[in-house]
């Protein structure tokens, strides 16, 4: 009896040799692709972020509450920072996930490290997103404007 061997890349792979079978689907390939796509975008977003915040004008001396208020008054920078937050957190989380999988040998250790990782990621992404969208340049506590705010003249 002769076994039929399909030509490479014909897509006709016997089920037992498929790398992408089972419940995980294409997750690892999509994660690999995401790292490359998000990486290119992050280079642009983060280099822009560093240039505008550290290299232009007075650099770091200009950074205070009013500086942040001035940026987030513009939807362009809100979207920029939102994209940077989500892409950087997901890119970093997937990187640390890979490192945990590589170095933590016990199943329980891997599981717990990843639970901590995903919890931290969720908290930071939710917190950052809320801060960008609920930011108030002129905060008021008990009817009094907080000092240092970016309030319009009365």
């Amino acid at each position, binding site marked *: 009896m002769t076994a039929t061997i399909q030509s490479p890349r014909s897509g006709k792979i016997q089920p037992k040799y498929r790398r992408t079978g089972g419940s995980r689907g294409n997750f690892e390939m999509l994660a690999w692709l995401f790292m490359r796509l998000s990486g290119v975008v992050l280079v642009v977003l983060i280099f822009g972020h560093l240039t505008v915040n550290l290299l232009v004008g007075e650099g770091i*001396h200009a950074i205070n509450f009013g500086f942040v208020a001035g940026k987030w008054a513009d939807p362009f920078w809100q979207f920029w920072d939102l994209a940077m937050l989500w892409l950087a957190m997901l890119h970093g989380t997937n990187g640390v996930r890979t490192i945990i999988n590589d170095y933590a040998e016990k199943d329980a250790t891997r599981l717990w490290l990843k639970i901590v990782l995903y919890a*931290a990621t969720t908290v930071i992404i939710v917190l950052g997103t809320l801060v960008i969208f609920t930011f108030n340049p002129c905060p008021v506590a008990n009817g009094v404007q907080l000092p240092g705010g970016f309030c319009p003249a009365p």
Partner: protein
Amino acid sequence: MPTKPAGTLYRGREGMWSWVGHRITGVVIFFFLLVHVLDTSLVRVSPEAYTAVIGTYKNPLMALGETGLVAAIVFHAFNGLRIIAVDFWKKGAKYQRQMLWTVLGLWVVVMVGFSIRHLSLALGGH
């Protein structure tokens, strides 16, 4: 006794060390990012809380720390583009070593420029 494998293209050479550097810089950047989102979130607490915490960053030690962080980011960025070229460019694997030296050359140029600008601003007194 195990001996060093002869003729390996990968171990102990540019490919391995760039991989080590990419991991270490990646982890450093990730932990900074967690802290950076938390400190920026103080804008939601009060203007004074944010400006006070940012104020503690404005000292010479932190200026050096920021320069180190940016050095990690710039290496991770350029080496990441090299990894993409290795994966997607037909001749990427063939030229991965030359690309690493290009990455390091560009990294030096960018970091010299950044350090002069950032340190003169940060240490320049205000």
